[in-house]
């Protein structure tokens, strides 16, 4: 018997939840006030709800179908899994997107799919959904399409005309890992697709001689995801791969997804507690790389076995390993140096740079900026403060480490 829409929605959203990305930000600004129709994007995305897993729900994240001819060990939808299977028609996906959007549940659609029949067939249906949302329903909300590496160039190009973001998941950081756990996936094809996409985005972004207007092509760029903790890759390898992907394909984001138990999991992968803290540290390191001027090598240089410290955030760990770079004078240091002080974020640094033009800053000033003095004090000097011996204390690290938890008797 055919499953109801509600039953299929349950199956196909359950199947989509292992994709970490839910971003709806960074696309071009547009709205429906002049054009009519429905929808807008305003630069920063909106999280319309949060689930008890702490994750934001911004998009209707669903699979078109969870039938899949691939057998990737880590995936809930692999062909050898016995999860319930279902599929939506393109019309149903369009209807759900529009009705959810009208009720302000979502910012738009994140559509992915298992691979059925052929890559082009699957991609063709996905492109059709995006095209009809845009052209028939005048939908101006956010669309993220997962692209399929083996799909034809023509379909990918059409996808870019309607979608804000395109993504291909690399899933595992090394080629060896991919061939071990995702035997049907070809790492070289994934890289080529990402390269093609970068070239296409750059080509369309360049204003043409005739119009000077930029063509709209995936204005929110491309992103990818890596699973953390499924294979043996360490953090240095993962971050190295990220750096490579950012540099090579101008990715907007690399998402890290702690490998999480899935229903009917494969025999080759153990059921583990998802390494959430490790995932968090990787995101922090990723941030240092993208916004704080750190090279990956610097972040991973002082780690043990290439693993980030779980007790300390990576910037603090770096600072403790590079004591000679401190203390930093808050009233004179340049932006790049201030950004490397543990406890200073980009906003704090902006506020410091703007405030110190008025007068020399003291600890009280920093406190008013909601800076944790305990954290920054050993690393800075300012009017009326030098860390003196604090910066040289051998046990500086232990001051920042979380208190050991008492072991329970059981």
């Amino acid at each position, binding site marked *: 018997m055919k499953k109801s829409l*509600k039953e299929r*929605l*349950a199956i196909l*959203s*359950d199947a989509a*939840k*292992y994709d970490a990305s839910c971003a709806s930000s960074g696309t071009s600004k547009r*709205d*429906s*006030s002049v054009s*009519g*129709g*429905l*929808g*807008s994007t305003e630069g920063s995305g*909106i999280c*319309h*709800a*949060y*689930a*008890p*897993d*702490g*994750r934001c*729900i911004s998009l209707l994240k669903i699979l078109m179908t969870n039938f899949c*001819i691939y057998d990737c060990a880590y995936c809930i939808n692999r*062909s050898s899994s*016995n999860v319930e299977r279902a599929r939506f028609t393109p019309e149903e996906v369009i209807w759900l997107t529009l009705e*959810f959007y009208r*009720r*302000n*549940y979502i910012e738009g659609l994140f559509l992915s799919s298992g691979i059925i029949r052929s890559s082009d067939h699957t991609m063709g249906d996905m492109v059709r959904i995006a095209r009809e949302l845009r052209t028939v329903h*005048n939908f101006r909300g956010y669309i993220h399409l997962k692209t399929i590496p083996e799909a034809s160039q023509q379909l990918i190009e059409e996808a870019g005309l309607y979608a804000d973001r395109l993504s291909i998941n690399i899933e595992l950081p*090394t*080629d060896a890992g991919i061939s071990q756990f995702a035997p*049907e996936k070809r790492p070289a094809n994934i*890289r*080529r697709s990402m*390269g093609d996409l*970068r*070239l296409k985005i750059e080509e369309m972004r360049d204003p043409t001689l005739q119009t000077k207007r930029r063509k709209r092509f995936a204005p929110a760029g491309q992103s990818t995801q890596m699973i953390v903790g499924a294979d043996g890759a360490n953090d240095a390898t993962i971050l190295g791969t990220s750096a490579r992907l950012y*540099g*090579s394909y*101008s990715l907007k984001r690399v998402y890290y997804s702690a490998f*999480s*138990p899935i*229903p*009917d*999991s494969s025999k080759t992968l153990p059921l583990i507690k*998802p390494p*959430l803290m490790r995932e968090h540290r990787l995101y922090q390191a990723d941030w240092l790389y993208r916004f704080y*001027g750190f*090279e990956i090598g610097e972040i991973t240089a002082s780690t043990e076995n290439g693993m980030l410290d779980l007790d300390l955030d990576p910037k603090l760990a770096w600072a403790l390993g590079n004591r000679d770079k401190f203390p930093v004078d808050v009233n004179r240091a340049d932006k790049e140096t201030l950004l490397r002080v543990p406890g200073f974020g980009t906003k704090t640094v902006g*506020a410091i740079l*703007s*405030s110190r033009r*008025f007068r020399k*800053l003291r600890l009280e*000033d920093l406190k*008013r900026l909601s800076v944790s003095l305990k954290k920054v004090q050993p690393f800075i000097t300012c009017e009326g403060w030098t860390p003196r011996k604090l910066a040289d204390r051998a046990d500086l690290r232990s001051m920042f480490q979380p208190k050991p938890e008492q072991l329970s008797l059981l």
Partner: protein
Amino acid sequence: MMYRVLLRGRGDLTEWRDAARAYLAAGIAPDRVEWRTMDDTDGLFGLDGNQLPAPVDKPVTQGVPPAFLKLAASVICHSDPTRFSLLYRMLFRMAHGRNFLGMATDPDVVAANRVSKSIGRDYHKMTAFVRFKEIPLPEGVAGRRRFVSWFEPDHFIIDRVAPFFQRRFNDMDWLIVTPRGSASWDGETLRTSDEPAEKPDLRDDTDDLWRTYYANIFNPARLKVKMMMSEMPKKYWKNLPEAELIPGMIASAEASVIEMGRKAASEPLAFHHRIQEAAARVPMPEGPTAGTIEALREEARRCTRCDLHCMATQTVFGEGPVNAKVMIVGEQPGDQEDLAGRPFVGPAGKVFNEAVSAAGIDRTQFYITNAVKHFKYEPRGKRRIHQKPNMGEVQQCRWWLVQELDLVQPKLVVAMGATALFSLTEMRHKLEDVRGRPIAMENGRMLFVTVHPSYLLRIPNEGRKAEEVARFKEDIVAIGRLAS
């Protein structure tokens, strides 16, 4: 004397601004003005009771920075009763001193920024958590669809946030009612009011589908309740249709993860075996005939002779006529070549093309390739910095170059740069010693050595650069002569 001013205080900047202007012009110090709102005095005196100072002859007429007005427009929406005096104190200080808004650590600036931030948050949460419910049109009536929402913002933000909903929900009629005012849109006019409204009784069946989605997109193995609570505090729950599921989802999370673990991995269904068999049956597509350049190119596409293939996008194989008289050998592909999969299409390729066309030569008559076929680089920030291939990599990749030479059989081989020279001769000459003249190779073949065009791009001194470019162009002319 003390002045007292009474405002409606529902997020309207102009009423405060008009009063503040009058006090400022009269030079009244901030500690002599008491700001109250109608709501906290029961409107006992009414707006007519405001004591405005008499106009003065020489008012303080210093312009107010636009950034302050922008900040004030936000701060005024807050429900904190001290917002008016905070703004007036800042205005007064600015008029009698300097613009201190950039002093982010000033206590008044800190306070105003904090208030403004909470307005920003309230605004953002309203755009996020308003839930529209459809009010069906009477049967047989056609027209725009109608939606209504009840929301409870913390501050007076209706005027501020209404345009957002108009920009977004253009093709439907909507009405948002709150205890702090309401907003509506009918396709032509956006209307707002600051009068408190009552909670209407609303229901919409689509909420049920939304709850289904909410329950299933949740991953019970990653329970992080604190994180959810900080982003979606409980005060919002009563107007969110999905929130009623939260306690049950938290309570059953652990059990459902344990249940996943308890189940032994099952045997795949027939579906899986059919797919695997079908995949095994798919015949390999017929490749190009062995011994041709196409076959070699195809084979090189899957090259794993060294580790570079894992880092690069693709093998960049040589291109050009298989019967070319001249084979150009560079070092390795760069960023652009790696993406495009073709040799010499980046900046160095451009320099090469210019020299070639200046010499009146058609580039397409050359067979152009590289000593190393994968791009070697170091990621730095958002770019890739070229790295010289090491000897091992060059030697591994010579495998392909030797076969290219065998198939193309060029009369003249041009080594551009030291890496190409090393790959072709296995000897490490100083480039300058062998540059610019034909050198006999085995099989009656000639070798010609010049610099790599990327070298020209790296010369900082403009004068020397021009000289070197001229020398390179001469070399290309010589190559043209030798080829004919």
